[in-house]
């Protein structure tokens, strides 16, 4: 690369149990869970009837009725998170800097909730294949095109550089931020509004995970249903939300006196070329992503202070990434806290990678590792330090965040405390 470095100068979060970065951090650092019985639709008849939902009223966040109708829920999350992140960073765009500012946002399922809603109308509840366009709502085309996500945030922010929506399943958030980091390093832009958003709690998405038994069916105890790394885990709990970071070329951020939370120095992604939903027990491809991201950030594996895990709570995932982290960190893995915030905020598909990066940024600010809630019974195949239930003070210089997605995507991001001189 060219020596250009990337700083995080703003954070915005809309998460279950906490809207805004302070409320989100309060939830995480206290180990509270936001998983509950689904309220966004009547889940009667579904196998999994639980989710981590955001209590979000668009009018409380300044949306007029028209604006709320025009922007799907996942876009509303992104707009609110982006507004917070930009305000936090003190970023101001003028005529010239607007062209040097991009947007890179991820989403796994985009506007599917709206698409399903209108489908029900135009098909008369699934009665017709020959659907009737006259029964659809006026903004349906905006839900059809996931590009609406990045477009809406660019419009709000005034960015006129590269604007893209990224959709690599459950690594969308990490990948959207990773692409932004590489683009700034390459000199294609100086600033990027990067993150991800999803609002997948709808019948079709719940049903599709029911069909492959990927989600937890612990409907009797929703608050304790998301149990990453625990021997009794039985699948992930669907979530929703969004998070946005302001990424900025380091010297630019310093020159304007911006608060620098941390740097993002490395990102890599690889395909496992194995199976659309299945993971190997060895985690070789994730290990490769971790090694590559560490090399970019010039961080040694033994210098990692915290691993923010994908930790979805499926049998295969938690075993897979435990193996991958051990493969790269070696003995150091046993001394390194590794936690999954999905235990608290659920798995919001494409959004979660960005929400997890926001958690990493806040953890590095506070030097506190958020816990893995609900962790009680060790699994012999998952034998690392998962920081059960209670947050822990820990000096955080270098942090690793990893993710896995349907389609075989394996991604890793390395965050570091800002350093004057990098060895």
């Amino acid at each position, binding site marked *: *690369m060219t020596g250009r470095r990337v700083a995080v100068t703003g954070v915005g979060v809309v998460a279950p149990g906490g809207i805004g970065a302070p409320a989100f951090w309060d939830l995480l650092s206290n180990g509270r869970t936001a998983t509950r019985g689904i309220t966004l639709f009547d889940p009667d*008849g579904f196998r999994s009837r639980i989710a981590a939902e955001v209590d979000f009223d668009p009018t409380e966040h300044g949306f007029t009725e028209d604006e709320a109708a025009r922007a799907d829920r996942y876009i509303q999350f992104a707009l609110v998170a982006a507004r917070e992140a930009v305000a936090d960073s003190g970023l101001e765009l003028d005529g010239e800097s607007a*062209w040097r500012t*991009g947007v890179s946002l991820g989403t*796994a*399922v985009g506007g*599917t909730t709206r*698409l399903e809603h*209108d*489908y029900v109308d135009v*098909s008369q509840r*699934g009665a017709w*294949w*020959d*659907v*009737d*366009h006259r029964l659809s709502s006026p*903004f*349906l085309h905006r839900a*059809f*095109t*996931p*590009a609406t996500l*990045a*477009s809406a945030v*660019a*419009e709000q922010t005034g960015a*006129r550089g*590269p*604007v*893209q*929506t*990224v*959709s*690599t*399943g459950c690594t969308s958030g990490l*990948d959207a931020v990773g692409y932004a980091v*590489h683009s700034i390093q*390459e000199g294609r832009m100086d600033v990027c509004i990067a993150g991800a958003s999803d609002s997948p709690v709808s*019948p*079709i998405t*719940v*049903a*599709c995970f*029911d*069909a*492959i038994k*990927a989600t937890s069916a612990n409907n009797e105890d929703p608050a304790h249903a998301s149990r990453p790394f625990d021997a009794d885990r039985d699948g992930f709990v669907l979530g929703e939300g969004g998070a946005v970071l302001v990424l900025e070329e380091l010297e630019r951020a310093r020159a304007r006196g911006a608060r620098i939370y941390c740097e993002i120095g490395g990102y*890599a*992604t*690889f*395909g496992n*070329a194995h*199976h*659309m*939903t299945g993971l190997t027990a060895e985690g070789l*491809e994730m290990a490769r992503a971790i090694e590559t991201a560490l090399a970019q950030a010039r961080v040694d594996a033994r210098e990692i202070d915290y691993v923010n895990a994908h930790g979805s709570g499926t049998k295969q995932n938690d075993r897979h990434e435990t193996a991958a982290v051990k493969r790269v960190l070696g003995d150091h893995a046993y001394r390194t806290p590794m936690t999954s915030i999905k235990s608290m905020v659920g798995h919001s598909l494409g959004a979660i990678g960005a929400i997890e990066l926001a958690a990493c940024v806040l953890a590095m600010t506070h030097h506190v590792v958020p816990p893995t809630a609900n962790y009680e019974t060790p699994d012999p195949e998952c034998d690392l330090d998962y920081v059960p239930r209670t947050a822990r003070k820990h000096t955080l210089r270098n942090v690793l965040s990893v993710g896995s997605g349907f*389609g*075989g*995507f394996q991604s890793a991001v390395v965050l570091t405390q800002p350093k004057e001189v990098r060895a």
Partner: protein
Amino acid sequence: MKSRTAGPVAAITGIGVVAPNGIGAEAFWKATQAGDSVLDRVTRQGCEHLPVRVAGEVRGFDPGSLVEERFLVQTDRFSHYALAAADLALEHARLGRADYADDPYAVGVVTAAGSGGGEFGQRELQRLWGRGPRYVGPYQSIAWFYAASTGQISIRRGFKGPCGVVCSDEAGGLDAFAHAVRAIRQGSQAMLVGATEAPLAPYSVVCQVGYEGLSTGDDPERAYRPFTAKACGFVPAEGGAMFTVEDAAEAVRRGAPVRALLAGHCATFTPPGRPEDSEGLAHAVRGALREAGCAPEEVDVVFADALGTPEADAAEAAALREALGAYGSKVPVTAPKTGTGRAYCAAGTLDTAAAVLALEHGVVPPTPNVFDVCHDLDVVTGSARVAPVRTALVLSRGRMGSNAALVLRKGP
């Protein structure tokens, strides 16, 4: 895209096309060069009554003869096109398993997708709402989403390199090339890159009805006529193209055909609702030329976005004049997509395929159905124009505001 950092130069070595006017690069080029229009009345089952009357349908495509049944049952039509096009692109580049068997991480996949597996999704929605949650099948979780094609290509061919998905609007098809170029610069040996779309399913068509600029004309010869006084919008299309992109030096070393160099790319944003705005596209053109180290007069042909609304056509003509100066009115401009329709994200990839073939053959293909140009542009109409073509500029604008420009140079 070589000027920013020294290092590998990315080259297109293989083209795989599944388009309304032909399957395979050869058939596609034959129809494109001849200026054949294959726009026709929509015949897809369940779409006939909808207000989109004319489109570019891929006909005569038999996925079962190209892709294994177990991949077909778990994917939508858009991925069928992608899997077949990826095979064609690899074959065209003569890149086989033996070339990467030692290092599966050396080859990655990037696709762009504007709407995902809509037809598959509609079928499963019908099961859910018509019969109940337990009737949703296991493949809905992997067929509808935008990442389906990248994942399936990676799995089917054993590619473990960087895998990505851009689900931007139309311009995303060109942005996918920028991702591939970055991967090559970072050390990947080869990338499969491109986009395919399948927006012609009943519910997907319903979802497009709200697009500004969508043509509702029912005469295939008149429904999509950009740059004319009769411009009345665009017609949609399905299909697309995949490409094998390689480190040019590596490609030469293994004796592969270097068909074109990916010399420059730039993306910008124009807030939606400003169809008359030319600034964003002009900025993208200037950026792509700068990266390619290319003077305006070196551009031998422009593959236009050609949206087909009066304001957008005027803005595109203005953008070319802003970015290329007086030469903007002189450079040959073509829009072969008037004969096939706009395949959303895949439109830019089909234009890129046509541009690479134009470089190879020294021929600028014409713009079907367009005769009476009313803008200050040299639009190639009627028949193809034989001319030395060393540099091509491909433009794309998205319905949600993205602009992209891609500069292709003839190989050494």
